[in-house]
């Protein structure tokens, strides 16, 4: 019995908790992508770099606050700096829209044109981030490191395996939950939220009903940029900030959005957790886990790892291809046109 509990705790510690945190970060990113897709009808390829941009400004503001001696105690200072980063990301997104995408909207260009234009935006944002903060790893988490540590859990439970929850992980899940609830309330309850959904559902009819497309587009960028910054900051607090890693997050984020049904916010959240759990579970080494569940004094040969962690992208990719081949509309019937 203790063995089973130990195995469970082990699994929670190395798969459950990290995947939950990672899934929350992906969900925030995927929500942005799916909203942009729903309203503007193209895959926004610069989303990873928008995340990096917002996070970078947040980091700079964090350093500034730290230099002034401001601190949030156990919570990371970055939370206080977040509004600066979000504002910068919103500004960047709105400028990109005004300078680039508005023109093609007026022309009623095909989605692929928007898509290529977003590659241009990606280059610019990427360059800005690399110039301002550099291409290297940055760590900016401060405050309390752990909600509780492995040792504390072991003493409390009497098990030989321990469970640790880092402050950043708890923060990620709580913050993501609050933001998601707020977003869904906004979309379901407010006039603007309904207008966004209506516009995404049926653009012509929304226009007939008097929805102002310029406002819908503006709101979409604002929300997506804020979500992107939050996702990026939480990811950076949880792991670390590196511009290139953020670009690479595009793949799991899009996999999540497409799995859930692109254009569907609910789908983006569900898809994000599925992608995150698959990724962590497939790349976790189950050796010790199996030892607890197997017979006494037995140890499996090898690590029992399905794929090495370097191949985690292939998980997103396989999910993506499986969805596209079997059910292109995704779990929640997204748009395919």
């Amino acid at each position: 019995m203790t063995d089973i509990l130990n195995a469970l705790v082990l699994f929670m510690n190395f798969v459950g908790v990290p995947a939950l945190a990672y899934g929350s970060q992906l969900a925030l990113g995927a929500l942005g992508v799916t909203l942009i897709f729903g309203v503007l009808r193209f895959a926004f390829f610069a989303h990873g770099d928008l995340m990096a941009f917002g996070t970078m400004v947040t980091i700079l503001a964090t350093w500034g606050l730290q230099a002034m001696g401001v601190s949030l105690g156990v919570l990371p200072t970055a939370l206080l700096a977040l509004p600066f980063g979000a504002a910068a990301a919103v500004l960047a997104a709105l400028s990109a829209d005004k300078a680039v995408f508005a023109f093609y909207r007026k022309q009623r260009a095909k989605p692929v044109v928007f898509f290529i234009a977003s590659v241009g935006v990606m280059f610019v944002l990427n360059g800005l981030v690399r110039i301002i903060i550099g291409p290297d790893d940055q760590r900016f988490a401060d405050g309390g490191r752990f909600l509780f540590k492995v040792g504390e859990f072991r003493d409390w439970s009497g098990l030989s395996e321990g469970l640790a929850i880092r402050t950043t992980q708890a923060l990620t899940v709580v913050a993501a939950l609050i933001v998601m609830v707020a977003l869904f309330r906004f979309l379901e309850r407010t006039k603007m939220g309904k207008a966004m959904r209506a516009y995404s559902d049926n653009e012509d009819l929304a226009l007939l009903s008097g929805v102002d497309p310029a406002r819908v587009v503006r709101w979409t960028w604002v929300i997506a940029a804020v979500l992107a910054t939050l996702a990026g900051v939480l990811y950076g607090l949880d792991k670390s900030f590196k511009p290139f890693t953020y670009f690479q997050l595009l793949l799991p984020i899009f996999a999540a959005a497409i799995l859930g049904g692109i254009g569907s916010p609910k789908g983006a959240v569900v898809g994000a957790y599925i992608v995150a759990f698959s990724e962590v579970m497939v790349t976790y080494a189950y050796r010790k886990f199996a030892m607890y569940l197997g017979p006494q004094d037995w140890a499996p040969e090898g690590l029992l790892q399905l794929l090495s962690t370097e191949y985690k992208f292939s998980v997103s990719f396989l999910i993506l291809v499986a969805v596209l081949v079997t059910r292109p509309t995704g779990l929640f019937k997204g748009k395919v046109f």
Partner: protein
Amino acid sequence: MSGQDTGGPLLSGRGMIGGYGGADILHGVNIEAHAGEIVVIVGPNGAGKSTAMKALFGMMPLREGRVTLRGADITALSPQDRVKAGMGFVPQTGNVFASMSVEENLEMGGFLREDDVSETMEMVFSLFPILKEKRRQPAGELSGGQRQQVAVGRALMTRPEALMLDEPTAGVSPIVMDELFDKILDIAATGPAILMVEQNARQALNIADRGYVLAQGENRYEGTGADLMADPEVRRSFLGG
């Protein structure tokens, strides 16, 4: 929204000429509708029926001619502004927000209104009781006839003085069609002018106060519904004998 009633038509399009970019589709079409009246536009395929309606609603730019509402020139207004001015339009396809609930569809219909829409919504629900029952269901999950009711209900939410319907009975069964026509009579009884394009010409002319027969982008015949039904020429050429 009631303006000065001068006794003239509520909605009128005169000498409408235009098309989409290339060749003209309308070659001088005249259509008008009075308050409380049901006006039906019939004609063979390609006659320009739907185009005439879109021109009245500002969805197709006119090269010549003018459109007036309550005597005021609205030729230059965008469709959205025409909604504000008191017109409602139900497109033939894509006329509901499929992913949104029936109630939200109606709310979107009243999007432009600043005042309380609950009274109008109750009115729509009393007109279409089935919608009240299914108010929480996504419109995309309803049957074809019910979707048409949602579409009409959505357009009614601005309390339009002129309601335009583009082939409201396309693709529904004959029973549902009769039901829809009954509802349209009910709506007309509450005051607005109703202008509709219909493929089911006989049934539509049956409930119409007046009808227009268009052919090749021009007015061919016009008269009361009964007159047109009785006209042997119209019967032979446009109503299939």
